[in-house]
């Protein structure tokens, strides 16, 4: 599993791939890894199941168990699945480049939401001083408090 910092970089460069199907695959994989971070931090093993054909949606469902506030990214995950389908099922559409760019923006929102939520959950509210610690360790922080 790549660190958050690595995922951020990977997402930034994902749309540079001239193979748009491969780029969409990579963005979907990055989105899954973002959710894996949340699930691992909660002490669970990320599922390999799928829902409606997407592991991403199964991971999201797993991530909400015991923490309904994680539902705040439910529609974000569904929009990722929808835009992934648009790019990969209609590759010759005139809007495919824009759709891929939109897929990247939505995935970025998932990344920002989950990484921000993990920071709060791991180290408590109102703790700006926690930032360097998070940046240094990035993962494997114990989850002590709900965001």
């Amino acid at each position: 599993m790549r660190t958050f910092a690595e995922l951020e970089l990977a997402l930034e460069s994902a749309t540079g791939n001239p193979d748009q199907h491969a780029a969409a695959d990579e963005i979907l994989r990055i989105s899954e890894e973002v959710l894996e971070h949340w699930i691992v931090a909660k002490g669970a093993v990320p599922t390999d199941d799928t829902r409606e054909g997407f592991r991403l949606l199964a991971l999201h469902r797993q991530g909400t168990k015991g923490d309904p506030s994680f539902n705040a990214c439910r529609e974000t995950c569904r929009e990722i699945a929808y835009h992934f389908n648009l790019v990969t099922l209609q590759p010759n559409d005139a809007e495919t480049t824009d759709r891929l760019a939109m897929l990247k923006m939505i995935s970025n929102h998932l990344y920002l939401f989950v990484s921000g939520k993990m920071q709060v959950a791991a180290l408590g509210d109102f703790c700006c001083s926690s930032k360097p610690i998070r940046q240094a360790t990035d993962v494997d922080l114990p989850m002590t408090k709900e965001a």
Partner: protein
Amino acid sequence: MTTKDKYKKVAYYPGCALEGTGHAYNRSTKAIGKELGLELVEVENWNCCGAMEVKNIDPKIQTYLSSRVMSVAANEMDMDVVMAPCNGCYHNLKKAEYDLANDADSAQVVDRLSKKAGHKTYESGQVETIHALDWIKDTIGEDGLRERVKNSLSGIKIANYYGCMYTRPRHIFPEKDSGPGSESTSKPHFMDDLLEAAGAENVDFPLKTACCGGAHTLSDSDTSTKLVLNILKTAKLAGADVIATECPTCHTGLEMHQIRAEKTLGEKVDIKILYFTQLLGMALGLKPKKVGVHENISDSMRFLKEKGLA
């Protein structure tokens, strides 16, 4: 009595935000109510709904605080509908309603505190809590708006941003997802419907219910700025000129972090942020000042002049 008639006169619960940073929302809500012939009767001596701070410490105290607002409306004002334009207030009153109907412990705490405070205990079902979107949609509706539009919003592309509390959690909003004409929790559309009726062109905006980082604003402003920047850029990519809002927390966050993104990240996104009530008010022929455009942090006057609304 039909829903349309029932909502024509409602108890108005502005909440704390609408007296402060969200004052433009308060002003524009009252202005369009007056213009549309709808009556708002402010809840007497209302209190905080419990927002996020109290809820995080003790959810039952939040249930009590929200129940007191509904108790005043029902038992002291004889009203049966409370309209709360703020997503936080709307969400908390709905949550209190649900808890009182389904959790005996919450009902006990509310009863004990109500007696201690010296007012009647709110009983589940005494009032119906609605949002400003329900209020306009169910009283005037799209057809009624079309008839009343004086300055069409034609030529304005809008990304409708509902935020995360208007539809979540689903179980406290039993009237949503209840068939044709009802609001959707996964793809809300009431704001889209109303603004389209006023002539606007809605863009397909995939982050309409995504988190704006409001809860991170104090603890980690950088995360909030990045979340807002991503929302602004996504709306721009979707082709929008304006982001329409219906929550004072989201609205203020979008405006503040739009500026902060420019200052701290050097990223400027030229997109206007306006309350849906401001847009509807101007479509109904009200001047920008009447709907509080001058109270917004961001300046949209030049844009509004270009579009013939100012």
